[in-house]
């Protein structure tokens, strides 16, 4: 799920040509920095996901793999009941492998807005994260002190013909470390829909990254989904074949 943030940042790359040249360079550089921070060419990690809703609270341990922006794979390690359940994102498609029934299911378009593993992330988030690049324009909209912290703010606005669910996305970065601090999603009426906060900056796999991400839906402030990274490794040399559908089953 870290991809979510990082791709959001990448999308700033093709900033509008009319934008001030230096600003564009600045945004590009920031995005590149954050992108490199998170992704590398490939990555492997272990994280814990805690989901709190009105109806349930659950904690899962998961293992994640990624290759570029087109492939990612997340497998549940615990609890036992769901162990081995795997989500594969391959370009725009999402497949779920269910060990209990030994089936791989490609999610239909109708299921994209559904919750991913019972969390506050949707399946659509998994796909759209890599498409933000094509769907949004990025602009540096704030730089300076706010609440005693020096911050940078980048606003992502959808391109006119982009089929996206958000009205805008606002990223906030720490001006000094240039690490992301929050990501706020607005709907088409410019009302806040959900907020992702990033914290607990730590060194992992040779990089300094925020290791805790918390997503809170605006209409249910008592609910949240939190990801905490335990381990991260970068540039592990995974190949495309690792992310094939046929391999989902054998693991």
């Amino acid at each position, binding site marked *: 799920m870290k991809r979510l943030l990082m791709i959001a940042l990448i999308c700033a790359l093709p900033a509008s040509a009319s934008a001030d040249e230096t600003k564009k360079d600045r945004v590009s550089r920031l995005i590149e920095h954050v992108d490199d921070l998170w992704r590398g060419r490939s990555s492997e990690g272990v994280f814990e996901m805690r989901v709190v809703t009105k109806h349930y609270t659950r904690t899962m341990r998961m293992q994640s793999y990624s290759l570029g922006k087109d492939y990612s794979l997340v497998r549940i390690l615990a609890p036992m009941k769901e162990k081995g359940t795997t989500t594969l994102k391959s370009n725009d498609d999402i497949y779920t492998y*269910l060990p*209990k029934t030994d*089936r791989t299911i490609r999610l239909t378009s*109708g299921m994209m807005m*559904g919750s991913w593993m019972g969390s506050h992330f949707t399946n659509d988030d998994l796909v759209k994260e890599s498409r933000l690049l094509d769907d949004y324009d990025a602009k540096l909209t704030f730089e300076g002190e706010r609440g005693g912290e020096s911050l940078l703010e980048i606003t992502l606005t959808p391109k006119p013909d982009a089929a996206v669910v958000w009205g805008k996305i606002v990223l906030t970065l720490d001006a000094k470390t240039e690490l992301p601090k929050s990501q706020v999603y607005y709907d088409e009426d410019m009302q806040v829909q959900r907020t992702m906060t990033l914290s607990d900056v730590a060194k992992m796999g040779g990089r300094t990254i925020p290791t805790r991400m918390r997503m809170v839906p605006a209409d249910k402030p008592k609910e949240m989904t939190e990801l905490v990274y335990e381990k991260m490794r970068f540039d592990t040399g995974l190949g495309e074949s690792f992310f094939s559908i046929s391999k989902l089953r054998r693991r």
Partner: protein
Amino acid sequence: MNAFTIGARSIGRNKRRTAATVGAMAFAGFFCIFYGALIEGMVKALERNALRMELGALQIHHPGYREDPDLYKRIEDTDAIVAALDAKGYGVSARWFGGGLVAGKTTSSGAQLRGIDPEREAGVTVVGSHVQAGAWISAEAPQGVVLGKRLAKTLRLGVGDEVVVLSSAADGSMANALYTVRGVLGPINEAVDRGGVFMTQQAFLELFVLDGGAHEIAVALPDGATLEGAKAEVAQLAGGAETLTWKELQPTLADMLEMSAAGQFIMMIVVYLAIAMVVLNAMLMSVFERIREFGVMKALGVTPRQVATVVFVEATAQATVASVIAVLVAWPVSKYFQTNGIDLTAFVQDVSVMGVAMDPVWYASPTVSNLVVSVVVLVIVTLVSALYPGVKAAIIRPVEAIHHR
């Protein structure tokens, strides 16, 4: 000599005319009673099919469930409510619903998963007896599911095939399980045909990680109970849950059934108008045939009122006899078709009205109220028809009448 004796004698005098008139009246009465029973039978069958296929007479839900069905909006104290209604003689079935994805070998489709206790459900609906292939779900085989007709076709699944069900469980986990298609239903209604997957309560609760608390409790009424009376009683037992009658749940269907009743009423009017013409004709004929006779009566000092009375007495007597004949014939005939339906399978197979599958066998449903109304209307129509001939006879001029040929 009074009007009654004269009337009685004139009836007896022209037996053929009397027989024709009485026959026409009796046929009208018969037609109305029998036709009424058939229409009533159709309306009842529609209602019964809607109720016995899915609705039940009453339904209990968590308030807000119907507006926004949600796995978590469940009826508290489901067991207590079911037990209390059971004790009062109602048919009660708790039901669980959840959306999900159902996948066959090659295709998948969205579906509505329905968890029920097949034994309890049989006390409310007959859906279990409409399995087209295979068998109905059974508590003994919790891994067997029954699919709606069109869903099975979409998924290209038949009895014995494996089917994977995928959804979100109540604890946020990915609900997924492998079942075997135990049966495929015949036509039930749009929703079931297209996306219904029936499974046992036990299998449903396990799949969705739930611990009871149904989404819906369907209630069938004991014999003789009225809908409104039952609603009051059930609502009290259901406590904070929402209790609605099928008419409130399906207002369009209720409206349509009422329209059928209105249609019956209009048909009745048409039939009685036709009968009125026949009676009027018969009465007029009998008056014209006897113009000389009436002329003589008036010449002898019989008052116009008495002459009219004679005509009315004749009409009433004939209507009475006709009514008795109509009832004696129509009632047993209607009763016969109540148990031996008219089989329409030769003409139609899958009939569905407003998304409710219809039984292709048409049963009559005779009611006493329909019988009484038919008879009363027959008598009134006869008397109204006798009005003109009666007045005509009363105001006849003796001199002209006596010379009438």
